[in-house]
C-alpha cells in the first residue's frame, strides 16, 4: 500500500480531539468521579526494607466492624501481579522485600476514619539484612531474590572483541552512572473498582494499558474474560509510570470492592505516590573501547548493570532495550555487551519513558566525548567518522536498509546552534568570568515499537466502525495521556477514509468495547497502531466498494450512505486488521541477533550550559533538537512531545534526585523532589526531518521516548566543555559539581 504524498489532515495542526474538555475543566480524571455508595480505600505498607511479618495487630480504639479489611488470604485467584515474571505478590504474605510493600488494605466510607485506621494497624517484623546497591547484590553475600539476585542477563556479541585490543592505537575506559528518576505525573495514581456476582470486576482509572490491568485482575480474581472490565479515565500524565503500577492498584481497589460490597476509590496522595510507586532503573555502565589512530571504533565492550529493586516487574525488557541502545548510532565491527539486572530491597523500579535507552545512551555519548578528549579529536568529528550509514550493520548485525541521515542531522544541529562559533566565544569569555559556558552534543537513535519479535507476539488487533448516527469510531486499546493518541489516530482514520476529522472519534478506552491493540508504550502508537488503522480503513473502503456501491471518489455523504447500505445487509459496519510485520524482520532471542527494531528514529541534540562558579549550579541556557522521525502526523503535538521530553531529560541530568535512606525515599514531597519550573527551562528549538517509513501509519515512526534520550549526555558533555572536568554520573547537582571542581582545582578553591 502506498502512502499518499499529499494529505489534508495528517500533517496538519488539527485541534486536540479532547482539548476543549480539558480547557474547560470538564475532563473527568478518576478523582473527579464518584460512584453511588462509594467507599475509600487505603494501603497498610511495610515500614522496613526486608523481613518476616511476625504479627499484625488491630488497635482496639478503632471499631473495625465498620471497615473492610483485605489480606493476602482474601485473594480468590493468584496472589501475584501479572507482568513478566510471577514474583511480585499483590499483597505481602508473611514477608516483605521493600519499604512501602503493600501488606493489607482497608476500606471505609469516611476518608478521615480510614486514615486513622491505617495508623492503628500494628505490624511486628523480624528484620532481615537488606541490600540497597548493585554492588551488594552482585556480591551475593545476601541473596534477596531467586538463587542469586540476578533478575536477568543478556550477552550480545558481534565479531571478535578479544582480538581487537592488541592492534588498537587507543583504548579508552570509563564508568558512568545514572540515578533513579520519578515520573512526577501531576495526577497521582488512582482507581475506582466495583465488584458484583453478575458483572464481576469493573475498574476505572488512570492508566496506560487497559489490557495489562485486565490480565492482572483476571489472575487475581480467577475470573473468565467476560467478568473483567477495565476503563481508562482521563489520565493526567503517565510517562511509563502508569504502564505497570496500575495493575497493582486496580487489584487492590477491586479486592476492597469485593470485600466491602461497595464501589471503592483509591487515589494516592503525593507523598504515597512518590514513596511507593515505580521509578526509572538506576544504572552502572562500564565502557572499554578500542580505536584506530583516526578515532574509528574497532571494538566496544560494555558491562551494563541496572538495579531492579525488590521484584522483577519489567526489568528484563528495560535491560533488553538498554542493551540494544548501548553502542550508539555507530559502526563497530566488534562488540560485546554483558548486561545484568540485579535485585535489591528498594521499591521495585519500572517503566519510564526511554525504558533503558536513556541510561545506555548517557553512557555511550559521555564516553564518546571522553574518547574525543583523550584522542584530541573534535567531538562532532569523532562521531561523524563513526556514524552508521545505509548498508552498514549495527551491533545485532541488522543491516540499515532504511535511510540513515545522521550526517545531515549533525550538520543541521551544529549550524542551528552555532556550535563552533560559540565554543570559540566561550573559550575567551570563560577565562574572564565567574560563569563558564560550554556546548555539548549527543547523537542517538530510538527503536520504534517492541523489540524484535515483540510486535508479532503482541499480535495487535485494531479497527474502525461506523455508528448509525454517522460517526466513525477508532477501536483501539491505546490510550491518551497527553501525548496525542486520540488526535493522531483519528487523523489517520479521517485521512485514510477521506472524510472530515470532526466525524471521527475514539471509542471509549473500555475493554468491554475495544480490542487489544497492544499497550501504549515503546513509541509504537503512531507507527504500529496507526498503520493497522490505516489498513483497516482501506479494508473498509474495499468492502464498501464491493458490497455497497461506493465509488472510487466520493463525498462524505456518499461514504455514509454506503455505510448504511452495508449495514442493512451485514448488520454492522466494522473493519478489523491484525498487525502485520514488515517483511524481513528476523530476530533471534537467544543470540540477540537480527532486526532489533523495524524502524529507528535518529537525532542529534546540542546543549548550551552555563556553570556558575560562585554557586556551582549548572543551567541549560539554550537547546537544539534535530531529529528524523518519519512522517510527522501532527506538527504541534510532535514538537510538544520533543519539548516535554527534553524538559524531563534536563531534570534527569541536573535536578531530579531520589534520596534514599534505609530503603525509603526521604524526599517524597514535591518541595524536595526537584523538577524544572517555567523559569528553569531553556528555549528549546525543535527541527524535524521527515523520511516517511512505509510500514508506519502514514509513514510515521515513534517519537514519544526519543527526546528523553539525548539531553542528559548533551548537557554533561557541555559541562565538560565548560569546566574541563569529566562528570560521569547523573543527577549532577551543584554539590557534586563543587566536589569535582574542588578536586580538580584545589589551589584556586583554597584561595577563595
Amino acid at each position: 500500500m502506498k502512502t499518499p504524498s499529499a494529505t489534508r489532515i495528517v500533517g496538519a495542526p488539527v485541534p486536540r480531539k479532547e482539548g476543549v474538555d480539558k480547557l474547560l475543566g470538564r475532563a473527568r480524571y478518576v478523582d473527579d468521579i464518584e460512584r453511588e455508595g462509594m467507599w475509600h480505600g487505603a494501603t497498610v505498607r511495610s515500614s522496613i526494607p526486608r523481613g518476616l511479618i511476625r504479627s499484625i495487630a488491630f488497635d482496639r480504639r478503632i471499631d473495625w466492624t465498620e471497615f473492610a479489611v483485605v489480606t493476602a488470604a482474601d485473594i480468590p485467584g493468584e496472589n501475584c501481579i501479572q507482568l513478566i515474571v510471577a514474583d511480585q505478590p499483590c499483597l505481602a504474605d508473611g514477608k516483605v522485600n521493600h519499604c512501602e510493600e503493600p501488606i493489607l488494605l482497608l476500606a471505609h466510607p469516611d476518608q478521615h476514619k480510614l486514615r486513622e485506621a491505617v495508623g492503628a494497624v500494628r505490624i511486628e517484623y523480624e528484620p532481615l539484612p537488606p541490600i540497597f546497591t548493585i554492588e551488594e547484590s552482585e556480591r551475593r553475600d545476601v541473596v534477596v531474590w531467586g538463587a542469586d539476585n540476578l533478575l536477568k542477563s543478556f550477552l550480545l556479541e558481534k565479531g571478535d572483541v578479544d582480538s581487537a585490543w592488541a592492534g588498537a592505537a587507543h583504548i579508552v575506559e570509563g564508568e558512568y552512572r545514572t540515578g533513579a528518576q520519578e515520573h512526577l505525573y501531576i495526577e497521582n495514581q488512582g482507581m475506582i473498582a466495583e465488584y458484583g456476582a453478575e458483572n464481576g470486576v469493573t475498574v476505572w482509572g488512570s492508566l496506560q494499558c487497559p489490557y495489562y490491568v485486565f490480565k492482572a485482575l483476571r489472575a487475581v480474581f480467577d475470573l473468565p474474560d467476560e467478568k473483567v472490565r477495565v476503563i481508562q479515565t482521563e489520565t493526567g500524565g503517565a510517562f511509563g509510570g502508569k504502564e505497570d503500577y496500575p495493575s497493582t492498584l486496580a487489584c487492590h481497589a477491586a479486592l476492597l470492592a469485593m470485600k466491602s460490597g461497595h464501589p471503592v476509590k483509591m487515589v494516592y496522595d503525593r507523598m504515597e505516590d512518590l514513596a511507593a510507586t515505580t521509578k526509572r532503573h538506576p544504572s552502572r555502565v562500564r565502557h572499554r573501547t578500542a580505536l584506530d589512530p583516526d578515532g574509528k571504533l574497532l571494538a566496544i565492550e560494555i558491562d551494563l548493570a541496572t538495579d531492579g529493586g525488590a521484584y522483577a516487574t519489567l526489568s528484563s525488557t528495560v535491560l533488553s532495550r538498554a542493551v540494544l541502545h548501548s553502542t550508539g548510532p555507530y559502526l563497530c565491527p566488534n562488540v560485546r555487551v554483558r548486561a545484568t539486572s540485579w535485585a535489591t530491597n528498594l521499591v521495585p523500579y519500572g517503566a519510564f519513558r526511554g525504558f533503558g535507552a536513556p541510561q545506555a545512551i548517557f553512557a555511550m555519548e559521555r564516553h564518546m566525548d571522553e574518547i574525543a578528549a583523550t584522542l584530541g579529536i573534535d567531538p562532532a568529528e569523532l562521531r561523524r567518522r563513526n556514524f552508521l550509514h545505509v548498508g552498514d550493520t549495527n551491533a545485532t548485525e541488522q543491516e540499515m536498509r532504511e535511510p540513515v541521515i545522521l550526517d545531515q542531522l549533525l550538520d543541521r544541529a551544529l549550524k542551528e546552534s552555532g556550535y563552533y562559533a560559540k565554543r570559540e566565544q566561550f573559550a575567551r569569555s570563560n577565562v574572564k568570568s565567574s560563569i563558564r559556558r560550554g556546548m555539548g552534543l549527543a547523537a542517538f537513535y530510538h527503536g520504534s515499537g517492541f523489540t524484535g519479535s515483540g510486535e508479532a507476539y503482541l499480535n495487535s488487533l485494531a479497527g474502525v466502525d461506523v455508528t448509525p448516527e454517522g460517526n466513525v469510531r477508532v477501536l483501539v486499546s491505546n490510550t491518551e495521556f497527553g501525548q496525542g493518541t486520540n488526535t493522531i489516530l483519528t487523523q489517520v482514520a479521517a485521512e485514510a477514509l477521506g472524510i472530515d476529522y470532526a466525524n471521527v472519534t475514539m471509542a471509549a478506552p473500555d475493554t468491554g468495547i475495544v480490542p487489544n491493540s497492544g499497550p501504549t508504550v515503546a513509541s509504537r502508537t503512531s507507527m504500529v497502531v496507526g498503520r493497522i488503522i490505516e489498513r483497516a480503513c482501506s479494508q473498509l473502503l474495499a468492502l464498501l466498494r464491493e458490497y455497497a456501491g461506493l465509488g472510487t471518489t466520493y463525498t462524505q455523504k456518499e461514504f455514509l450512505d454506503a455505510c448504511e447500505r452495508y449495514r442493512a445487509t451485514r448488520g454492522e459496519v466494522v473493519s478489523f486488521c491484525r498487525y502485520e510485520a514488515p517483511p524481513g524482520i528476523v530476530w533471534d532471542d537467544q543470540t540477540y541477533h537480527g532486526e532489533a527494531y523495524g524502524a529507528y528514529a535518529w537525532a542529534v541534540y546540542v546543549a548550551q550550559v552555563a556553570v556558575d562558579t560562585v554557586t556551582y549550579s549548572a543551567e541549560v541556557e539554550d537547546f537544539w533538537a534535530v531529529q528524523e522521525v518519519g512522517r510527522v502526523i501532527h506538527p504541534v503535538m510532535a514538537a510538544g512531545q520533543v519539548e516535554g521530553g527534553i524538559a524531563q531529560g534536563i531534570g534527569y541530568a541536573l535536578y531530579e534526585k531520589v534520596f534514599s535512606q534505609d530503603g525509603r525515599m526521604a524526599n517524597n514531597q514535591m518541595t524536595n523532589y526537584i523538577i524544572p519550573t517555567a523559569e528553569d527551562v531553556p528555549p528549546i528549538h525543535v527541527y524535524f526531518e521527515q523520511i516517511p517509513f512505509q510500514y508506519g501509519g502514514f509513514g510515521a515512526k515513534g517519537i514519544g521516548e526519543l527526546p528523553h534520550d539525548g539531553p542528559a549526555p548533551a548537557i554533561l558533555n557541555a559541562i565538560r566543555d565548560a569546566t574541563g572536568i569529566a562528570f560521569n554520573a547523573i543527577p549532577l547537582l551543584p554539590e557534586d559539581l563543587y566536589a569535582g571542581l574542588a578536586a580538580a582545582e584545589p589551589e584556586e578553591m583554597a584561595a577563595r
Partner: protein
Amino acid sequence: MRGNAAMHDLIAPSELGAVLQLLAAEPGAWTPIAGGTELMVAFSAGHLAAPKLVSLWGIPDLRSIGVTPASISIGAAATFLDLRRNATIASEFPLLAKAASWIGSVANQGRATLGGNLVNGSPAADSSPALLAYDADIEIISVRGRRRVPYSAFHTGYKRNVLLPDELLYAIHLPRRFARHASYLRKVGTRRAMAIAKVALGATALLENGVVREIRLGAASLAPFPTRLWQTEAALLGQTVTRETMQSAHPALLAEIKPINDIRSTAEYRRQVAANLLDEFLLSLNPEESQS
C-alpha cells in the same frame, strides 16, 4: 491529604483586640494563622498538631504599611505581594522587594506574610537576610502592651523565638537610612523558582573613603536560625576592601557559621558557597580588586 478539618477549630475575629484577649485568656492554646502557606502544608501532611487556630487574615491593623520620615512599619500580616507593590520598599529597601519576589510562586506571595515567615522561624526564611541587613526591629504586642526587639535577637534557637505565649508579632520596622548603602542579596536554591534556600546572604555596607564604616551581613541556612554574621562583620569593620582583607574575613566566617548536611544540601557545599557569596559582595564594593 492527611489532615482532618473536623479536628480543628478556626475562628476569625474581625479586630486585633479580640485576638489579643484570646491569647491572654488561653496562652499557648491558640495558634495564629495568617496566609496559611506553612500551617496548611502541615495540615495536608497530617502534621498540624494545633487543635485551635485563630485567623489573622483580614485584620486591617496587621496588614498596613506605614511610612514616616524615619522608618517604614510593615504590619506582620502584610503579604509579600504587598511588599512588592510598595513604592518605598521598592526604592529604599530593594533587598526586601527582591526577597519577596523569590518566595514561592505568585500564588504563594499573595498569601504568605512577612510575620508568618519570621514566626515560622525556618533557618532558610526568605525575608530574613534582608531584614538583618536592614537592621530591622520587631514590634510585639499583647494585652499588656507593646515591646520592641531587634530582629537579630528575635530567634533564640531552631524554630524558637522571644514571643511569650500571650504575644503576637505586630509589625516589622525598618529604619530609612540605607538609601546610600551598597547592598547585596543572593539566594542559592535548587532551581530558579519555588526553592528553599540552601544558602542565602543579604548585606548592606557603607564605605567612606574606601573604609568600611558600617556593615551588616544576614545569613540564612547557615545556622539553626537566620543570623547576623557578627564576627565576620567585626573582621571587616574599619578595613578597606582588598584581597587581603577579603581573605582574612574567611576564618571569621567559617568559625561562626554552623551549616549542616540535610536533604537539600551538604555542610561542605554551604560553607564554600557562603564564602563565595561574601567574596562576591565584597568585590562589588571594590571591583578593582577582582582579578581575571
